[in-house]
């Protein structure tokens, strides 16, 4: 028989003004199972809690109901008090007689009656409450960071600086990401490489960072604190331990006509290459698709010239399993490309802008490479078609972005600012040139951003035309850009030498496949979804996985770095304890009843339901049942309401408890 203690709070006068608390205490005291009931002015105060603890011990109470404010306010307080008196905290429930009763009713008689009923309901419920042990999950204090752009680098450095090992996985042969490709950065115009490369070197030299470049995530298993990640280290064909990075192989490689993707195909590179001179690691990789040795079997020059004998044509992909406790996803973005429209993509493309057909129509990233001092032109703005300096240049904004009819309705966020920057860079390099910008709106929220944009117009003489371009076509060596200036209501026609399209920011290719491997959700554009748009912006709904940078949505560098540091802080919070403690409000499967239909698995938003084989003593398979991983379960209980055989139960919200409440009415 339970010995329930009921404690009715006056909450000063907040409750006792409309509810006759003494009558409630007296009435509830007569309920079967209630051993003790009392009322007190402030239950949550120190003496109030003291009263509660004393009563538990003196009256040998088995369960506790505190009738006071909302459990959202003080459930934790009272459960803690109950725990310190030696009872399991989950044997304490709160009856909400303030927010749901005394504050919303004026009639004392009605309110008192309602309060008695509410407390009665909770008394019946608490009788069915079970002892729930706090769930503890061990934590592997190592972290995986996917993506070696500025987001991944920042997150990796922050975590590693706190003394925890980081495994950084980058798909390309070098870390650096898009930031390494940029020339200067807004709004300060400092050189991107100058601020980026030291960080890259820090990563390479950090004793706590294990760097895998030219590698991808093959497979992810496990849950928060206990992930097993399989990394595919692609065959580089160069032994990283032997290579000294002297670069002789690259200069001697006879195959030199491969478009350099780092330079947006403007320059050429050999078949054995590093993406750019400051690459980290400075170990070349053989592009097997274009290497003569791999295509025909003849050549082998690089192997012959390599002093340390690092070139290894026999190297194979390696699969490495890394145990980690947390994962930071920082896979970044890609620019929407009009020319290569992936099959099945919902994006319709801009045939009318001639991208991919007219050589002097380029995108923003290509312009960055042209403007970069280490780029294919040495920092000179030259036309890809004939190498001439463009005297009239047109920038078109919102290409792809904010165009619902084309398939993307979001704003890419960075283009207004980088186009303003481009007009400045152009003006600094081509003094007698004129830049025009077609724009819909200038969106410049950010520290010193609007000033920067105004500067491009007021000091750097860029002409901003509000309106969209309807068509552009090649006429001789000029590109005729036709559009409208909706501010004045006239048609505009500009004969340009070069056109730069501010194409939309999109998630990296394969973002969806990676999300499926990780078990995280993404939106219709394949940007990864955060757990809560406002209050949990760096966490995934899947516990233990965090987001940093543009993989979650278009972001500029300051925002990306902030989010990366935030993600690192979240990882550190997780690593601060040796064991994870979590509320034991999780689902459990009653294996005897489970028929293995796995409806629960289908509805589980956390992927917490696994398959478990039941075998007899001889080892024969009896049946396959569902198993809920308590480390992953979020505690929503959707599985329980879905289960046709009622074989899964959410602790703390069992059918028994709920039916007891309904029956108490």
């Amino acid at each position: 028989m339970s010995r329930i203690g009921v404690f009715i709070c006056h909450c000063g006068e907040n409750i006792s003004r409309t509810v006759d608390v003494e009558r409630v205490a007296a009435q509830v005291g007569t309920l079967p199972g209630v051993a003790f009931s009392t009322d007190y002015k402030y239950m949550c105060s120190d003496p109030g809690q003291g009263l509660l603890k004393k009563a538990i011990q003196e009256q040998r109470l088995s369960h506790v109901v505190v009738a006071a404010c909302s459990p959202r306010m003080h459930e934790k307080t009272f459960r803690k008090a109950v725990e310190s008196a030696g009872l399991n905290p989950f044997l304490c429930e709160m009856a909400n007689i303030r927010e749901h009763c005394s504050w919303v009713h004026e009639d004392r008689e009605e309110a008192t009656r309602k309060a008695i009923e509410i407390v009665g309901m909770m008394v019946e419920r608490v009788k069915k409450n079970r002892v729930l042990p706090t769930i503890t999950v061990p934590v592997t204090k190592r972290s995986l960071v996917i993506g070696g752009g500025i987001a991944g680098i920042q997150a990796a450095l922050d975590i590693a600086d706190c003394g925890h090992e980081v495994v950084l996985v980058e798909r390309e042969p070098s870390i650096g990401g898009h930031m390494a490709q940029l020339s200067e950065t807004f709004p300060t115009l400092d050189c991107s490489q100058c601020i980026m490369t030291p960080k890259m070197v820090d990563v390479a030299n950090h004793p706590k960072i294990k760097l895998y470049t030219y590698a991808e995530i093959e497979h992810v298993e496990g849950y928060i604190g206990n992930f097993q990640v399989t990394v595919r280290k692609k065959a580089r064909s160069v032994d990283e331990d032997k290579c000294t990075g002297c670069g002789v192989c690259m200069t001697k490689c006879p195959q030199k006509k491969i478009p350099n993707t780092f330079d947006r195909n403007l320059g050429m590179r050999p078949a054995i290459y590093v993406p750019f001179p400051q690459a980290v690691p400075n170990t070349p990789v053989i592009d097997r698709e274009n290497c003569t040795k791999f295509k025909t079997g003849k050549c082998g020059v690089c192997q012959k010239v390599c002093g340390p004998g690092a070139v290894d044509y026999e190297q194979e992909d390696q699969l490495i399993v890394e145990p980690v406790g947390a994962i930071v996803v920082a896979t970044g973005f890609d620019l929407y490309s009009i020319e290569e429209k992936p099959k099945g993509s919902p994006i319709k493309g801009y045939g009318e802008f001639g991208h991919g057909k007219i050589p002097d129509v380029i995108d923003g990233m290509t312009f960055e490479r042209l403007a970069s001092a280490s780029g294919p032109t040495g920092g000179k703005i030259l036309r890809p078609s004939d190498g001439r300096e463009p005297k009239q240049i047109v920038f078109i904004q919102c290409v792809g972005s904010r165009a619902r009819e084309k398939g993307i309705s979001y704003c890419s966020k960075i283009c207004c600012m980088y186009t303003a920057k481009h007009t400045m860079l152009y003006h600094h390099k081509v003094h007698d040139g004129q830049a025009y910008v077609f724009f819909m709106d200038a969106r410049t929220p950010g520290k010193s951003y609007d000033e920067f944009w105004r500067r491009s117009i007021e000091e750097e003489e860029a002409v901003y035309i509000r309106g969209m371009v309807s068509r552009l076509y090649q006429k001789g060596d000029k590109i005729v850009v036709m559009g409208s200036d909706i501010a004045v209501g006239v048609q505009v026609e500009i004969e340009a030498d070069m056109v730069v399209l501010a194409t939309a920011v999109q998630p990296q290719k394969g973002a969806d496949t990676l999300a499926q491997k990780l078990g995280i959700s993404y939106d219709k554009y394949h940007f990864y979804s955060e757990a809560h748009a406002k209050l949990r912006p760096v966490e995934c709904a899947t516990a233990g996985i965090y987001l940093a940078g543009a993989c979650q949505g278009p972001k500029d560098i300051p925002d990306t770095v902030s989010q990366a540091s935030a993600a690192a802080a979240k990882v550190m919070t997780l690593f601060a304890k040796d064991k994870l403690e979590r509320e034991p409000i999780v689902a459990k499967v009653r294996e005897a009843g489970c028929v293995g239909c796995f409806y629960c698995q289908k509805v589980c938003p956390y992927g917490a339901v696994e398959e478990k084989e039941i075998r007899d003593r001889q080892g024969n398979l009896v049946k396959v049942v569902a198993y809920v991983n308590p480390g992953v379960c979020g505690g929503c209980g959707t599985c329980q309401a879905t289960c046709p055989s009622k074989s899964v139960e959410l602790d703390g919200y069992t059918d028994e408890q709920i039916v007891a409440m309904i029956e108490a009415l």
Partner: protein
Amino acid sequence: MTGRNETVHTEGQKHAFEPKIIAFVCTWCTYAGADLAGTSRMQYPANVRVLKFPCTGRIDPVFILKAFQQGADGVLVSGCHPGDCHYIAGNFHARRRFAAFRKLLEFVGIDLGRLQFSWVSAAEGGKWVEMVTDLTERVRHMGPMQEFKELALEEQWSGVIDTPELKEVYNSI
């Protein structure tokens, strides 16, 4: 605020029939919305009893039947707005489940006026008050819900087999 009090509920007015309303709500949105109604000191009829669930996804339709059977004259189910679920998608599962369940109730002849599904966010204290008031008013006009109570009585009759005499007989067979 006083304007609302006058229109939605006239305190002290006695009615011939006071219905029992049970509300099944999720803890993150609607429970918090009802809390907000309290902290904002809005007034509504004292007929509703709130049962807290982690998520509307946890609410088994059987609970609704059970509530009617136990003497509820009206049932309210409310959770987070679509897309706002704390557990990602529990409210979508609930919505599907209840769409089918409503049809079933209609088929067996339950007046759907007694059952209200809704979304009330943590910021919608006012909406909570309006909804509870409207449902109470509506059910008040409809009168007591008899059908399921009769079923409950039948169940009590069948419960007679629990008497010691009968048990003895059963055991001897």
